[in-house]
């Protein structure tokens, strides 16, 4: 009887000791100065995701973005003219389990230039493959060019 109670008290004590010993090995992580500083990877991603087009009409650019996304089979979920924001999503066919989400922002850099940035997410992982963004901008270029074509020369 006595032996078993000894064991009962020894076990938690042993566990506590083990816990203290294992904690001892850990040093509190120090916040570094450049925690929020832009990294090269971020800059690279931004340049991958951004293209500048020679466009004047911001509304037409947003409509072009929407048209190209629709052509790619995306469902437009939100569009905000004021912010130049379009978000769309698609279930990757044929399995219907993977979700592709894209947010496109249209910003007027100068009266002559429009900067368009696309962020794409596959399931919950950002896409960093340059080829994917090239594909998107090729399709966008096509949609914008078609819109330009239908305008008469003035």
């Amino acid at each position, binding site marked *: 009887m006595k032996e078993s109670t000894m064991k009962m008290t020894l076990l938690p004590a042993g566990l506590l000791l083990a816990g203290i010993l294992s904690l001892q090995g850990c040093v509190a992580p120090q916040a570094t100065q450049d925690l929020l500083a832009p990294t090269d990877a971020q800059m690279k991603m931004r340049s991958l995701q951004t293209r500048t087009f020679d466009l004047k009409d911001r509304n037409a650019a947003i409509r072009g973005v929407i048209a190209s996304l629709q052509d790619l089979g995306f469902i437009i979920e939100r569009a905000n003219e004021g912010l130049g924001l379009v978000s769309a999503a698609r279930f990757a066919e044929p399995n219907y389990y993977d979700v592709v989400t894209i947010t496109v922002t249209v910003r007027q850099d100068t009266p002559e230039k429009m900067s368009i940035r696309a962020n*794409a997410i596959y399931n919950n992982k950002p896409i960093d493959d340059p080829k994917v963004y090239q594909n998107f901008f090729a399709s966008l270029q096509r949609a914008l060019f078609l819109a330009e074509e239908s305008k008469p020369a003035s």
Partner: protein
Amino acid sequence: MPITPPSSERPRASRCGTLAGAAACLLAASLLSGCVARTEPADLFTLTPDMPKNRVMQTRMFETPNERELLSASAAVLQDLGFQVEESQREVGFLRATKERSAREYGQYVARVLVLILSLGKMLQPVDLHQQISAALITRPLNPEATRQEVRIMFYRVVWKGDGQADRQYIPPGAQYMEMIRDPEIYQQFFAKLSKAVFLEAHRI
């Protein structure tokens, strides 16, 4: 309901919210891909061969200078079809509407019973219970004078499944999947109603 949740909540996270859900997700994922993390295919965002066909089915052109009227007529037609307008943006001619319906199908229940018998009572397949049918609509002027307008609508549905059982493993309810509606008749129906509405409203002014 949009496919993507509005805030930081991610689609997969929402589907794998509960522990049981996570287990089901894990099971589904391992069945689908053999435990390999799925990455995006390289041909993402490329145009597919069936694109022109879908575009033709989903798009109509209207000879009207009034984009706003066309958009509100579209909203009215969607309401007639039982949809609730969820989001709208007049400046870019955007509308999104949804309706919720039961997704129960007789055939699925028959299949469920057949599978149950054939598997000697071990497999109880989940059946579709509930669905949300959504429509995303865009109007767009085709020429700078804006005398011709294009309307493009996409219908799709999200389906929620009920619960089931695989051997001793309980399959919790709430698994969802999505599909585009590619039945040309639904699109024809919508556009027939819309052209009628535009015609009537054009005369009303």
